[in-house]
């Protein structure tokens, strides 16, 4: 180990007026870490369940300029995507995360949508990804990297469309993190995304689309909701 490392650790201990912690104290601290005790969690999210929690997620996401369309089955997604792209004057072309959770979506229903699956490259205008969880507290999407969910899809294209399932909506960041702990291994990247990219660096005026996506569109697939013709917007 490096000399700098030893000197820094020795300096820390000297300042704290003690030597290296004894084995018993280290064990206690390891247990403290392993217990992953939650700190205070805001009641506004923690107290909600089911439809109330989903409603808070939608309200908070819309507050930060994400747009949300609710549908009651994956079958409605291609239609929503095609209409969204047309309404925003975007080409009917998208790059899709190669994730099996998107395989239920009958893309053939809209044969004019040109679809590629993979990571994002320079010039890709629109991406569509699943998410790992959606956090009601602040309308935040939680996305994890992996072979089927490359991170570039979340940042390179101008428009990012995210498919969220109703049962993925959790109350707090800690709930999302607990779900992650049930999967095998930490991913390289976990992105918490709250609205589209923005900056206030020029005269503190908020402009969307600084370096990441200008538009963040959320398609919430929630079979438990009675959603009429498939949309309630």
């Amino acid at each position, binding site marked *: 180990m490096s000399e700098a490392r030893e000197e820094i650790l020795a300096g820390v201990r000297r300042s704290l007026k003690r030597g290296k912690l004894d084995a018993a104290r280290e064990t206690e601290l390891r247990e403290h870490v392993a217990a992953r005790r939650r700190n205070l969690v805001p009641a506004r999210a923690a107290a909600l369940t089911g439809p109330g929690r989903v409603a808070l997620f939608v309200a908070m996401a819309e507050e930060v300029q994400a747009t949300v369309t609710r549908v009651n089955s994956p079958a409605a997604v291609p239609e929503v995507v095609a209409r969204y792209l047309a309404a925003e004057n975007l080409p009917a072309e998208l790059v899709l995360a190669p994730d099996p959770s998107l395989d239920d979506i009958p893309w053939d229903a809209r044969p004019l949508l040109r679809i590629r699956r993979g990571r994002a490259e320079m010039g890709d205008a629109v991406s569509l990804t699943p998410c790992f969880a959606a956090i009601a507290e602040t309308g935040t999407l939680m996305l994890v990297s992996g072979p089927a969910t490359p991170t570039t899809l979340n940042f390179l294209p101008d428009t990012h469309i995210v498919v969220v399932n109703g049962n993925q909506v959790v109350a707090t960041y800690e709930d999302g993190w607990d779900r992650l702990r049930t999967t095998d291994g930490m991913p390289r990247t976990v992105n918490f995304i709250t609205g589209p990219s923005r900056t206030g660096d020029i005269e503190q005026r908020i402009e969307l689309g*600084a*370096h990441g996506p200008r538009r963040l569109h959320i398609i919430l697939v929630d079979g438990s909701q009675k959603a009429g013709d498939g949309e309630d917007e």
Partner: protein
Amino acid sequence: MLATSGTFEANARAGLANDNLQRALALMRSGFPQRRRSAVERLPEFEALREIGKSIKDHTLEHLDFYLELFEENVLASGGQVHWARTPDEAGAAVLAICRSVDAKLVTKGKSMIAEEVGLNEYLEKNGITTVETDLGEYIIQLRHEPPSHLIAPAIHLMKKQVADTFRAEHRSLDPGRSLAEARQLCDEARAVLRPQFLAADVGITGANFLVAETGSSIIVTNEGNGDLTQTLPRVHVVMTSLEKLVPTFEDAAALLRLLARSATGQEFSAYTTVSTGPRRPGDLDGPEEYHVVLLDSGRSALLGGELQDMLRCIRCSACMNHCPVYAAVGGHAYGWVYSGPMGAVLTPSLIGIAEAGHLPNASTFCGQCESVCPVKIPLPKMMRHWREREFVERLNPPVYRAGLSLWAWVARRPALYHALVELASRALGWFGRGRGRFRTLPLANGWTAVRDMPAPEGRSFHRLWAERRKSSAGK
């Protein structure tokens, strides 16, 4: 970074005379504090979270050696590397060695105050490596060869016309007739210019808002998404950070994240909070192949266990400077180094010495706003007083100032004399100033009257009023 804190007085005078800066600061005064207040009012748990944030940081600092070792163990386990640096020079050398190991020509950078401490851009440039700042504010000031003037809004001292002029001067391949009148157009131009750089870079450098010991992760919080492109596209991701960013678990980071965005910009949550752990995994289609954490000490370990330990709780939200009347009058550059406002007034003397930075803890009205908005309850005014005492004990103030203080102390320890003198002075001043109610000039007080009038006393002193009130309320 080279410090000019020693000339704070001249820097401050220049700031007061700078019209563009004064207009920019006026925007800040009306912006940040109001947004913070609304965000805080929406979260009933905010006050309780401040206490929790403080105790998480205190616990970590008390056991910092343990958490540093645990963090390192977990970075290594996830395939990353940790580089310990005692000094800014060692940190710079570590980054350069990483860049050389992959024969890097171009480096993109997310915002990092540690990189500012190191003076990383100049150092890498000197060694033949081009560095490009990607945060919009940082990019603007890099083009202008200026240091940041604010923790989270580094170009807050500029108006958009100045940014437009800079872009016109630097982006020479673009149509000179293009319009740059709107902030939108400036953002779009920066986005278009920086896009190819993200893709061409060999190494991406970011800072870290938090380091999580439990998993060996680094966390960055941004709004633009530049940090994410910086750390995802190049082959190598380097995190430049310092010892005190550690927290034990994700749960602890979550509590501090709830405080950070609300205190900083008044957002419920910043657009992007990103947790990075090691390099890309087998099968991943993107992400860096190498993950390095450069951990800088630079005097921080020496602050533990003493009166300045509380400063190591700081999460760099900028609420203290956003609410500081001195910062709002003179701007961040006056402070002459990386950090400004109240947190800079306490931290800068700790990191570069009180001899160079002695003016900063004196540039305070002690109004206490900074402490009252600090998300981790750092007693900033108390710590500024600590530095003033140190300055006095180390005989760093000018002789006239010291003589004045000694004289005052001698009088103040003799209450009868003190009261008599105060009575005499206030009567005399009250009589001379009875016409206009204030003085334009006053012997021995031209430091005050050069820039503002001195109000004339209206008769009785505070001590006397106090005594009279107590007597009359006792009589009731």
